[in-house]
């Protein structure tokens, strides 16, 4: 007994005291010694890690296979989620306030500028990484059976990522936003049948798809509110649900690999 004590010393007993306590054990349910059982439990008993399988084929660990791009896209999405929630404390989606709120974020509010910058640049980064994730999935042929439908879900994620970024573009209500969104939504005038300037138009400018999108014939207060609701609730929810399905299917089919 006394021999043991001398070998490990005070710090060891201190750590043992904590990790042996009933509080600790209620949170972490297994030991950390390097056994196969613990390495499995580390994944399965952790909510955040259990999207992973316990074990994977060796090639799946190679960074130069996936370039981590899907994971990075999701991580950037989480960064956008967190910074976006913080921005919501300061931003009001009304024409009278929107611009001033962004301006004061950039000038007055502590850490406001870095908050907004991270959200803005993160949005660009997410668009870039999702496009290159698609490129890697194409180049490795990972959409081949049985993963065809997960590619389709991926395309929907790509579109939603673009729309998420696009809807956020209007919110600062500056000239850049106004010009960009006007140009973008003008395209909706030209939709065949359903746009008032499109070929075979069957609707006038008060009933076409652009009117539905903007809540008016011009980019104005209603459009600002519509884009805001799309940007902070609807589109993020769609992305979360689609990403959940995307990940679930990867688990079921396993990551692709050489036959």
């Amino acid at each position: 007994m006394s021999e043991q004590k001398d070998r490990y010393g005070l710090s060891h007993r201190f750590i043992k005291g904590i990790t042996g306590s009933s509080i600790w054990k209620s949170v972490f349910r297994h030991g950390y010694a390097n056994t196969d059982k613990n390495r499995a439990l580390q994944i399965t008993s952790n909510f955040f890690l259990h999207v992973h399988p316990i074990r994977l084929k060796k090639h799946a660990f190679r960074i130069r296979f996936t370039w981590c791009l899907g994971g990075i896209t999701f991580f950037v999405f989480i960064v956008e989620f967190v910074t976006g929630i913080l921005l919501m404390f300061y931003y009001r989606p009304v024409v009278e306030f929107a611009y001033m709120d962004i301006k004061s974020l950039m000038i007055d509010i502590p850490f406001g500028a870095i908050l907004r910058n991270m959200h803005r640049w993160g949005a660009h980064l997410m668009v870039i990484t999702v496009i290159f994730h698609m490129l890697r999935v194409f180049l490795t042929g990972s959409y081949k059976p049985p993963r065809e439908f997960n590619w389709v879900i991926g395309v929907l994620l790509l579109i939603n990522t673009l729309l998420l970024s696009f809807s956020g573009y209007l919110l600062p209500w500056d000239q850049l936003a106004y010009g960009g969104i006007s140009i973008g939504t003008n395209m909706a005038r030209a939709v065949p049948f359903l746009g008032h300037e499109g070929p075979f138009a069957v609707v006038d400018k008060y009933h076409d798809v652009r009117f539905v999108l903007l809540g008016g014939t011009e980019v104005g207060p209603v459009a600002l509110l519509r884009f805001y609701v799309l940007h902070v609730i609807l589109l993020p929810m769609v992305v979360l649900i689609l990403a959940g399905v995307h990940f679930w299917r990867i688990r079921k089919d396993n990551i692709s690999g050489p036959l």
Partner: protein
Amino acid sequence: MENDNKVVEKGKSATDKEFVWPDLVFKELLASVGVVVLLVVWSLLVDAPLRPEADPAWTENPAKAPWYFLGLQEMLVYFDPWLAGVVVPGLIVAGLIFIPYLDINNPISGEYRLGKRKMATLLFLFGFIMWFVLIFVGAFLRGPSWYFYWPWESWAVVKHSNEVLWSFHWLAGVVFLGLFFIGGTFLSIVIGKGFVQRLGRTRSLIIIFLALSMFFIPVKIALRLLFNVKYVLRTPFFNI
């Protein structure tokens, strides 16, 4: 654990597998830290743009869409809005969604073996690169009123266009488009020897149509830049 047992049951050995903890989780952690560092440094160095407040009575010149849509905006130079803004993006999305159901040529998956998938790779990369080239032009080479400005040219110098555009006679247009799409289809079938048999008739025709539509974009751009052609086909209802 259950999953692993299933794999073994199917007759594959589990010995070529590795534990995810900690190796993969650690790499993911490193990637996340890398992303955070990148974003923080980027955000400290460069402020997100904030121009004067929006004023419906005054529009920017040029007003540019967000960069990822600039390829479509750039196409407005060469196509009417219903094509550049609706049909082209629609075909891109449809084409992307169809890829797994069209490319059934061989089952190679999970590794970079492009040499075995030459046709698929060439077509995809053609579209991918064209998308970014158009974005590049729209982002860096377009100035006021969407005129072409080299990066070293000042936007203060106002440009005027003295090109006179003309359009094909409608009959010539029908013949041209017919030759391009129908002739192109026959040509692809002849050149691409056995691929109709391998992929089936429907699949082959969809692939050929999507590919020809994609190639039509640079063709129209060339017609416009070299011969000042405005429309290939004029009708009372729409122009191409």
